């Protein structure tokens, strides 16, 4: 649908009498397809102008600030080397004592504020009745809400146990004494010795056999249901030091 330029004329008011149709000239039809791109172009031109203007202004501001700082640095260095710098130094020296007197009450005020804050906190804690608050906490309910199984499930017990130096604990604590008192009979000692001796001799015999007959072949160390993986006989066989003790 085509519109005419007359359609865009503002509504008539009492202050501005409506012009005569003849004064406006003949109506020129302006199709939407032409009017819309012109408006978009005008808006884009305006926005682009604003954008570029802002960018240029920002860059100029930065440049001005940079130049100002550089100029100030240069000026200060020049002044330092000049009689003005000497005068400023002597002035600072004269003001030093007064500045020190000013800093002391400032530090004192800081300490006073800290003390006041501490007393306030103490008073707040006394007023709060922390014991009463703790008594109101339903620990059982909290514990019930905690999924202990989930927590335990996330813990690698084997890894923890493997890190524990049980030998060291037994050496350093009285746990070992208790074990000795409970199971340290002469019969137990003899059995432990005989069995350990048998194991050490087994290890020696099997090491010899493995080297002669089982070159590079995996050899199970236990039946399937007892869950021991096969060992690679190419690796050094587990050893038992018959003089100082060790692995088997």
């Amino acid at each position, binding site marked *: 649908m085509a519109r005419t330029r007359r359609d865009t004329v503002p509504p008539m008011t009492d202050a501005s009498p409506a012009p005569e149709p003849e004064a406006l000239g003949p109506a020129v039809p302006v199709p939407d397809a032409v009017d819309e791109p012109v408006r978009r172009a005008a808006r884009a031109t305006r926005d682009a102008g604003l954008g570029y203007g802002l960018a240029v202004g920002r860059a100029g501001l930065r440049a001005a600030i940079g130049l100002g700082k550089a100029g100030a640095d240069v000026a200060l260095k020049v002044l330092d080397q000049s009689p003005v710098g000497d005068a400023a130094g002597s002035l600072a020296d004269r003001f030093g004592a007064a500045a020190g007197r000013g800093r002391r009450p400032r530090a004192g005020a800081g300490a006073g504020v800290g003390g006041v804050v501490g007393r306030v906190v103490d008073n707040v804690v006394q007023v709060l009745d922390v014991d009463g608050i703790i008594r109101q906490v339903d620990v059982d309910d909290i514990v019930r809400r905690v999924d202990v199984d989930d927590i335990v499930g996330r813990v690698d017990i084997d890894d923890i146990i493997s890190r524990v130096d049980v030998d060291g604990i037994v050496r350093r604590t009285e746990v070992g004494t208790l074990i000795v008192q409970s199971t340290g009979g002469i019969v137990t000692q003899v059995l432990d*010795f005989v069995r350990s001796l048998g194991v050490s001799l087994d290890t020696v015999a099997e090491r010899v056999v493995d080297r002669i007959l089982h070159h590079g072949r995996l050899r199970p160390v236990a039946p399937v249901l007892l869950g021991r993986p096969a060992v690679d006989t190419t690796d050094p066989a587990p050893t038992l030091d018959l003089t100082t003790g060790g692995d088997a």
Partner: protein
Amino acid sequence: MKADPPEGSLAGNYSGPVTRLAAYAIDAFAIVVTYGLMLGIVAFVWQLVTRSDLVLPASDTLVWLIGLGIWTFGYFAVSWGVAAKTVGMAVLGIRVVGRDGGELTVRQGVVRALAFPFSFLLLGLGFVGIVVGRERRALHDVIAGTTVVYDWDARSARLRLLTRQAAEA
């Protein structure tokens, strides 16, 4: 010679040849001793009941050997069938299990006791598998479908040794 227990538990691992040989030696001693005691008890009871002396066969007679064979079979069959271990095995800390590690059945124990003499009869070749076999099985193990594993916790033994050493230090 000083032999400390290993750090890890050996329970469930295949037993080695020396331990098994030592267990057999203890069992052989136990069999002969208990056989002699048994004959003595039989003679004593016979004397109490019949009021006459019982002339026991000499140890170099066939009857004595047959009796020893029967006693040996009974010793092993009952020990393995009931406890999966003999006295010697208990001392050395080993036990008989199924080939897959399962519990030994009474039938397996009896079959193992019946097959045990064959390992001797073949000039001892039946025991070679204990040394060179992958699963350390003797001939009677193969026949009965069994194997022998360690049954003691070497870890506990090691802790006991460490504590004794700490107490002595």
